[in-house]
């Protein structure tokens, strides 16, 4: 029971993180571009959501190792999907941090490009997650 509870808590964080990394990035631009101060808050949210994704992703491995002394067994397509997700997380965290530190000096076009890149990385990670789930 506690094993399932632990997996469920990790999954809960991972699911809400997944919704946030894509949803918040989309709402920064669509249906209308948000004012700069709001976009800055959204950048915080996206950064925190990606950090939650990374930590909860590690959480699956930690729970597995605690109960079975083994990590999830991923090969082939599933392992490639995991690497894609990790790359998206690292890239998105980097963009979010850069946005928070330097976006004040960016043009509107550069800000839009950053948000579009965050949307693309979020969508890519969610797509990879589906392959990770069913090809492992």
């Amino acid at each position, binding site marked *: 029971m*506690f094993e399932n509870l632990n*997996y469920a808590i990790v999954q809960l964080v991972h699911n809400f993180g997944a919704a946030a990394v894509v949803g918040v990035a989309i709402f920064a631009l669509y249906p209308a571009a948000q004012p700069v101060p709001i976009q800055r808050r959204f950048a915080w949210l996206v950064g925190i959501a990606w950090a939650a994704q990374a930590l909860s992703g590690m959480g699956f491995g930690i729970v*597995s190792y605690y*109960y079975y002394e*083994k990590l*999830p*067994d991923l*090969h082939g397509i599933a392992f490639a999907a995991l690497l894609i997700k990790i790359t998206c997380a690292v890239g998105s965290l980097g963009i979010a941090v850069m946005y928070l530190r330097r976006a004040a000096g960016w043009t509107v076009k550069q800000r839009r490009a950053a948000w579009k890149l965050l949307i693309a990385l979020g969508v890519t990670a969610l797509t990879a997650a589906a392959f990770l789930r069913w090809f*492992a």
Partner: protein
Amino acid sequence: MRISYVLAASLVLGCYVPVSFAADASDASVVISSPPEGAKISPKGDVNVDYEVSLGKKGDHTHLYLDSNEAVTLRGLKGSHSLGTLSPGQHEICIKVVNKAHTPIGAQKCINVSVESTT
């Protein structure tokens, strides 16, 4: 904030459950009925693995491995999977029961087969 405290407490409490109790996989099992252990196989013939699995309480599906590399995910509890033709030499075929996180829970069956040389 209170919800996050409850979730964190559950995670911590859950990790204090003795591993031997939580990770009991004794009710899961794997049987490979064909090929038999030590079988000698023709290099021209396909290798079909006949299996029967009981997932138990913790298992969700199984992974089939050829020489430690995962060949395929098996969703059925009973059936046959073709590995095609194998290269000459010794090969290990394993089926492991895994949970929803794709972690092997302990129940597994491994067999060794020998594919004869073509010469």
